[in-house]
């Protein structure tokens, strides 16, 4: 998903869930920050680089794709943008390597969605926002995996946009860096075909460019893992579902719902705004910030400031080193480390080595990357609460 959903729509959802304006802003900022918190950004503020929640194109260009590099890539993308739907899925074919990649395919309402939401309970708006980013992305990014794999993430010329009242239109993916997607003619940018299985071009939905992130997009295509079966992806419907699930999750985190269960949606609360939301989602624009912003300001009665990734930098940089965890970005960083640690552990515990090793420090004591030492107290604080 893009800023229109991660920032403005999340603000709307938070307001509907009962958060006030300031809390909603903090939640939506943290949600959108997951798409900006790179190693480059963290280095610039002197923060632990293990907390990176994304990788920019320039970083991906020089990233290693040896086993260590691949594990690092997989940890980031699977933890924050392509949450695996079923770590026990049976592909019905292929050896161990294929099975491990197949099991990383993102899908909605998997066990990890519940764990992600529960991990954010009692953690503050930073963790809440980050969790909502992960939950929302399971809807837009389903059927792609957060690990470089041609066998899982490739697409081909069988890619058609379904537009109401018109014959299905074949989508053409070009490879012109920086060129804007052309909605009128159905020409979009995607990564170039690379026959190498582990090429970075085959990460996530890169082969389909930004197209899966457009809320208006309804399309059918042949995922590489689906053995020539066609999949219909209905983003307008999925985005509405995502919004209703995010509202439900936020109500749980706000304390209005006792437990979080997958596959539950707050349709009733959203119902009065259903037509307005569907109009925003179905509008054929690359990013509908204005629509969601308008709705958010109507719901809260406050102006929504534009997203500024540098908004909390000064607080973090000027804080003493032993007090940084208490700053806004400090709490966000801890939330990111916790999420990455949880997902990596779940993948490792399922017997899958694509995200690397994971050590349970509660059982065996802390042994691992120093950045994660703060999580030892993070978990303790949650259980004390």
């Amino acid at each position: 998903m893009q800023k229109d959903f991660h920032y403005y729509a999340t603000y709307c959802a938070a307001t509907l869930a009962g958060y006030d304006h300031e809390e909603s802003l903090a939640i939506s900022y943290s949600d959108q920050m997951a798409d900006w918190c790179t190693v480059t950004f963290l280095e610039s503020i002197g923060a632990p680089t293990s907390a990176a929640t994304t990788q920019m194109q320039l970083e991906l260009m020089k990233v290693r794709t040896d086993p260590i590099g691949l594990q690092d890539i997989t940890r980031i993308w699977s933890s924050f943008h392509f949450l695996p739907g079923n770590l026990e899925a049976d592909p019905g074919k292929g050896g161990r390597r294929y099975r491990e990649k197949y099991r990383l395919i993102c899908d909605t309402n998997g066990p990890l969605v519940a764990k992600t939401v529960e991990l954010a309970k009692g953690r503050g708006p930073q963790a809440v926002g980050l969790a909502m980013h992960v939950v929302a992305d399971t809807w837009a990014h389903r059927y792609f995996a957060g690990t470089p794999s041609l066998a899982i993430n490739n697409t081909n010329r069988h890619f058609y946009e379904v537009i109401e009242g018109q014959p299905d239109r074949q989508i053409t993916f070009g490879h012109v860096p920086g060129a804007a997607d052309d909605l009128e003619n159905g020409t979009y940018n995607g990564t170039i075909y690379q026959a190498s299985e582990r090429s970075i071009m085959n990460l996530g939905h890169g082969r389909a460019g930004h197209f899966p992130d457009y809320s208006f997009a309804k399309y059918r295509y042949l995922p590489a893992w689906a053995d020539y079966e066609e999949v219909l992806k209905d983003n307008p419907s999925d985005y509405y579902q995502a919004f209703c699930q995010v509202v439900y999750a936020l109500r749980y985190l706000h304390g209005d719902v006792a437990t979080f269960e997958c596959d539950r949606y707050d349709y009733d609360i959203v119902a009065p705004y259903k037509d307005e939301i569907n109009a925003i989602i179905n509008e054929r624009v690359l990013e509908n910030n204005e629509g969601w912003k308008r709705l958010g300001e109507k719901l809260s009665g406050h102006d929504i400031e534009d997203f500024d990734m540098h908004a909390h930098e000064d607080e973090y940089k000027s804080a003493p080193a032993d007090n940084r965890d208490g700053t806004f970005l400090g709490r966000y960083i801890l939330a990111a480390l916790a999420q990455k640690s949880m997902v990596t552990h779940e993948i490792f515990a399922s017997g899958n080595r694509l995200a690397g090793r994971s050590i349970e420090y509660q059982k065996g004591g802390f042994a691992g990357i120093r950045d994660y030492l703060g999580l030892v107290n993070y978990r303790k604080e949650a259980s004390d609460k």
Partner: protein
Amino acid sequence: MQTTLSASQPTTEALTRRDRDTLYVIGTGILALGAWALVKYVMMYLRYSQQLTEAIGKGGEDGAVVSAVLGIIVGLALFELVLHVIVGLSARAEGQGKRKGFLYVVCAVLLAMLTFAYVCLDVFGLLAIEEIGDKIDVIIEGIIDFTSLMMLGGLIAATMRLRKSEPESKE
């Protein structure tokens, strides 16, 4: 239409797409092999052209026989090339959903028979040749010819399956 991440029986549409994709890929391979066959004949001519020219230059009965043999070889090469082109282009077109006539299947069968003959010649050659360098050449040729035979077999099988699942003919 599959929307869950669990293995299930393939649908008829999926099998049809798989066969079409097979035809498109193999058709492209057959075209490449046709180019390879042409290169092979040209290389053979360049290697043995001096001996052939001397033999033809002698004139008389021997020269006429050699010329005839040369003509047959050139004809065979062109025939093989034409078969490759017909089969390759038609398979690619059928792989993209355009129904082609049965002629290209007949050509594919002819090409397969010819390739099978080449494979047999490679085997006999391997047994007959003693020079290790020549043996290696024959082994390499044999691998290519065998691969080509497998490709043609796959192409014919995919076409038959498609014809069976989509009996109506449209061009």
